[in-house]
Structures are given as C-alpha cells and as structure tokens.
C-alpha cells in the first residue's frame, strides 16, 4: 500500500542554515507478518485461509469445479506472496471474475466467500462486498451516470464489487442508453486500480455470453470465468437438509422421500431455480405444517411435533397434482 516516498520538493525549506538537514523519512507502514513467511504452510497459517476453505467445503454443497477454481486462485496468490518475500517480481494478478450459472446456484454466496478469501490473503484491504445492480450504477439523465458509478466504485474500494445481472448494464436496443457510460468508467477503474478493487460480474450464462460478445473489452479484462453447474437431485436434498437444520426443523422418515419426489417433479417444470426453489418449497411446507398444527387446537404439542415436517405437508403441494408450484 505505502509506496516509497518521493524526495520532498521542499525539504531544504525547513533546514536551519548550518545544521544538518532534518530527516524527513515518511512514517513507516506497520510490518506485515506474512512478509516473513517462506513456505506455503506459513502463509496459510498466518492468513488463516484454511479456515475459509473448511467453511467453504462445509457450507456449500456440490459446486466442485467452482471450489477447485477458488483453490487454484488462492494457490496462485499464496505462491505470489512467497515470490514477493523472496524478492522475485510478482505481478498483482488480475482478479476480476465473472460468475455464470442458472438461478439459485450460489453465485452470491460464493462471491461473499471470495471476498473473505481475498481479504485473508491480503489482496483486498477490507473483506467487504458491495453489491450493485444497474440501478446503482446507471443514472437517469445526462451527466447523472458518471458520479453515480464513481460513488459506488469509491464505496467498494478496498473490497469486492459484486455486480448482479451485469448484462442489464448494456441495452443494445437503445443506443442512447447510459449503461455504456457506466461500463466505460468501470473498465477504466478495473484496469487502473487493480490493487484497490476486485470486480465480480454475475448473471445467467446465456445472457452473460451475449453481454461479453458485445463488450469485448470487458471480457478481456476478466481473467476468471467461473461457471456454476446446476445441482444434482442428491445435492438439492442435502441443501434442503441443511436449510432445515439451520431453521431447527427436520423431515420425518417418510417426508424425506416425499420431498425427493417433489424435487423430481418440480425440476421438470419451467422456472426451476435450484437452491432458491428448495428454499421457497420449504417455506411453503412450513406454512402447511403450521396450519396442520393450528387446526389441532386442543392438542399439547411436543418439541418433536413442532420441529417435524410430515409427508402430508409435502404431498399437499400442487406439484403433485400436475400443477405449477
């Protein structure tokens, strides 16, 4: 962060004639503990990246290619740190990324984790993630866009800027759209202030492809294109288990099978949004469980009654009648 200070232009101005020139060394930056590390294990221990990886493996189901890519990036950053400590040149790698994948595949969650990983490795100064959409970046009249975009960029500096549904920035059907202006400012900062800011663009694969085709400058400045695969049915069930666990619910023995069947039917319907659909389905199942318990006004409800979801809660869904969820 602190560059070697240029010699002061007016250091002689303050010297008393005959006295030695006063030392004007700039304040030293606080020492970085990672700077002394010589092995990968030391860097990992000092930066506690391992803890983030463990969290990543534990909290995120599936997504093997994404996790592998994050490990690769982290490995590069660790080795670069060691190169720097050994006095070799280490270019700050371009860390801008694009996350593509269907709805509900965990793009936002991974972006949050990415901010943590980069922060632990010392590549962004704060672990903050500033999320922005078209509304935050693009103005409504001439001269409105640039200050708005700069404002967001300034706020995100030192951390990660996450632009969700980035393709909305570019509206080819309207050539006077101000989105282009926002993209240009974004590109400029992505290029010139790589040390200060990491930009992550996210969106659905097909539309992101069109976006990159019409903005080749954007594509070439993004080094890492991560594709988020759809979850398998087993993984979705696992996700459901974890969601329920965090909300203090559980499936009764028959209910898990019923939910698996529900997922199989729901998958084949349009607008299936992976983990998000699972969350919504669970919310509706909780509603049905609540009204089932509500109707038994006289019954004393035990802890198990309150936490258990029964098969009939699930089978009451419209999906089982061939309807849309």
């Amino acid at each position: 962060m602190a560059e070697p200070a240029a010699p002061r232009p007016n250091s002689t101005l303050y010297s008393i004639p005959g006295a030695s020139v006063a030392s004007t060394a700039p304040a030293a930056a606080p020492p970085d503990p990672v700077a002394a590390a010589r092995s990968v294990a030391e860097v990992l221990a000092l930066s506690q990246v391992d803890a983030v990886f463990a969290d990543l493996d534990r909290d995120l189901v599936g997504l093997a290619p994404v996790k592998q890519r994050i490990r690769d990036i982290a490995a590069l950053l660790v080795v670069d740190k060691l190169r720097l400590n050994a006095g070799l040149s280490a270019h700050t790698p371009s860390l801008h990324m694009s996350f593509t994948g269907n709805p509900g595949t965990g793009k936002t969650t991974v972006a949050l984790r990415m901010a943590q990983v980069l922060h632990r490795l010392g590549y962004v100064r704060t672990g903050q993630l500033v999320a922005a959409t078209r509304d935050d970046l693009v103005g409504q009249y001439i001269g409105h866009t640039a200050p708005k975009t700069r404002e967001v960029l300034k706020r995100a500096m030192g951390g990660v800027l996450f632009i969700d549904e980035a393709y909305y920035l570019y509206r080819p059907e309207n050539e006077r759209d101000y989105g282009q202006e926002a993209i240009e400012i974004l590109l400029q900062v992505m290029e010139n202030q790589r040390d200060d800011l990491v930009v992550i663009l996210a969106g659905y694969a097909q539309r992101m492809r069109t976006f990159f085709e019409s903005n080749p400058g954007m594509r070439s400045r993004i080094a890492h294109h991560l594709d988020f695969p759809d979850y398998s049915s087993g993984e979705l069930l696992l996700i459901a288990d974890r969601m329920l666990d965090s909300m203090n619910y559980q499936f009764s023995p028959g209910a898990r099978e019923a939910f698996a069947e529900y997922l199989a039917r729901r998958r084949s319907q349009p607008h299936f949004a992976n983990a998000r659909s699972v969350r919504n389905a669970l919310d509706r199942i909780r509603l049905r469980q609540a009204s089932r318990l509500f109707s038994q006004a006289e019954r004393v409800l035990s802890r198990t009654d309150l936490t258990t979801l029964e098969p009939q809660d699930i089978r009451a869904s419209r999906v089982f009648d061939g309807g849309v969820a």
Partner: protein
Amino acid sequence: MMTNPTGRLTQGQFSFLPDLTDAEITLQIVYGLKRNFAWSIEYTDDPHPRNTYWEMYGNPMFDLRDPAGVLHELNACRATFPHHYVRLQAFDSTRGVESIAMSFIVNRPKTEPGFQLERQEAQGRNIRYSVSGYAAAAPEGERYHG
C-alpha cells in the same frame, strides 16, 4: 521580523510541516475512517484566514471504509485545480460533536506570496488593521498561476 520565513500558508493541521506524501495522507485518512469520520475535499484560491468555507469538491464521502476512494477523489481534485489550495476535512457525526474534527492542506500553489497587513489611521491616531492576500487582487481563477 519575519514570523513565517517559509511564506507558506499555515492553516489546519500539519501546516508547519513539509507537504505530506500520498502515503502519509493515506495514513491520516485511515485514522479518520477508523474513528468513523466522513472525509470531504474543499478547494479555494482565496485562502484569507477569515474565509472559513471553501468550495466543496463533490459530496462528503459518507459510508466509505477504505482510503483508496478518498485518495482517488483527492487526485481527481488535484488534477482539476492544480494551482489551488486543496484541503481534506473529516466530519465527526457523533451526536454532540457534529463538526469538523480534522482538516489539513494537501495541495498548494507553487508560489505563495503571502498576506499584507494594512494599517489605517483612524480618529485620534487609532490604528485599524486588515489583512489581504497579495494574490487576492487578481480575479478568481487567475490568482496562482503555478
């Protein structure tokens, strides 16, 4: 007797020190951000001691957490007004304080001619004093040519 031998404007913090480098300015910004101050940038070419309110460059930067944003804005201001005085100010919004907590000059013109003390003889050999900058006679925008 010369009371200000360097002829430099001495207003705000650090003004008797040599100019701060960007790294040192960054450290000050970090200090302010840690205490939840909002940084803002002001510029003027009329640094009369009684000219309290300089022109604002952009809005005060609330909800920033990293010094890079402030420095970025400062460099933009320096590029726009290379021959003006530019200062950084930190606003402390703590209830009951609600005022500027830090203020220091981060850009100054190359030559600073200083101020003249004018004495006016009034009734009964009283003296009235006033201060005027040597550069202030020129119109706004043409005062310090660098």
